[in-house]
């Protein structure tokens, strides 16, 4: 292979990687995990092992993952998540700055969904936030919201 063709190939590869990275950085992955926390038993769902240290912030004896959903969305795009008990979670990733992701989070409830909580916040990239306090079955729902952007 001639040196000029080799260089052309390298240049094209770098250009392709740059293009892929540019496209990828315009997406953010949202991860919504819903946990049912109760005091009715001592059971701990093994799927929640990675968040066990964080769940120590709560005083429940049993934790079970009831729903998990991941979704890749564009910046400024609203993502609606249906939660157990007929609740909704609306998340809008607004921007990425200083290695932090700005989010607009709204929790809705009811047959005609009414906003229960609306907040504008930022979390570290690949970081999480917990939203809880809504009763479900014999326990409480705890929602972990995670966001990860490609750097």
């Amino acid at each position, binding site marked *: 292979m001639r040196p000029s063709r080799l260089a052309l190939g390298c240049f094209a590869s770098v250009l392709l990687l740059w293009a892929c990275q540019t496209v990828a950085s315009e997406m953010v992955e949202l991860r919504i995990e819903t946990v049912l926390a109760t005091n009715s038993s001592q059971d701990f769902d093994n799927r929640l092992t990675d968040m066990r240290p964080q769940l*120590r912030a709560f005083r429940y004896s049993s934790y079970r993952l009831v729903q998990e959903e991941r979704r890749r969305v564009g910046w400024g795009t609203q993502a609606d998540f249906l939660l157990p008990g007929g609740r909704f979670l609306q998340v809008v990733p607004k921007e990425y700055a200083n290695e932090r992701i700005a989010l607009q989070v709204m929790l809705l409830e009811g047959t005609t969904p009414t906003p229960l909580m609306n907040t504008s916040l930022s979390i570290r990239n690949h970081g999480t936030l917990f*939203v*809880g306090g809504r009763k479900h079955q014999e326990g409480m729902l705890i929602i972990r919201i995670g966001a990860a952007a490609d750097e």
Partner: protein
Amino acid sequence: MSTCSHAERLVPLLSDGELDGPLRREVASHVSGCVVCTGALAALERGRELLWQEIEEQVEQIDFSGFWEGVAEKLTEPPLPWAVRLQLWRERWWSGWSLSAPVWAVAVAIVLFVAALFLPRPYLSPDLVSKNLEQSALVANDQAQIESLSSGATVFLWNEPANNTTVIWVGDDSDGGVP
């Protein structure tokens, strides 16, 4: 056997040596036995002789001194005008550059990368340093930063520094309290 009417068209060709083979022999045989055609052939040859003589006289009058020097001078390539030389140089440079454009691109990328590594950092004022430190602290802080929060219910908000956990607890009116 050729007749004069047949041979008179061929005599000029015979004089010029343009006839071959049997036709030449036939015409030559007729001319040798024909007074008219012999006279015609003799007139043609005499005319040719006079033509050559005139040409030679004219040529002898031409001054050929310095002829070869002139040819040699013309053979020497004269310097091209600046516009033509500039155009030729540009075409050569462009063809060479276009073939190695990727190499140039890679080289420029490497130079920029090295320059970014080794160029001195710009001066940071104390205020800017302080701002950068605040941003760094914000980046290093794993906890969520709440800009605004509104709710119709009772909301508890706390951070657990031990495990960098931020909790927004939306109290359930019926049975919601801080866990």
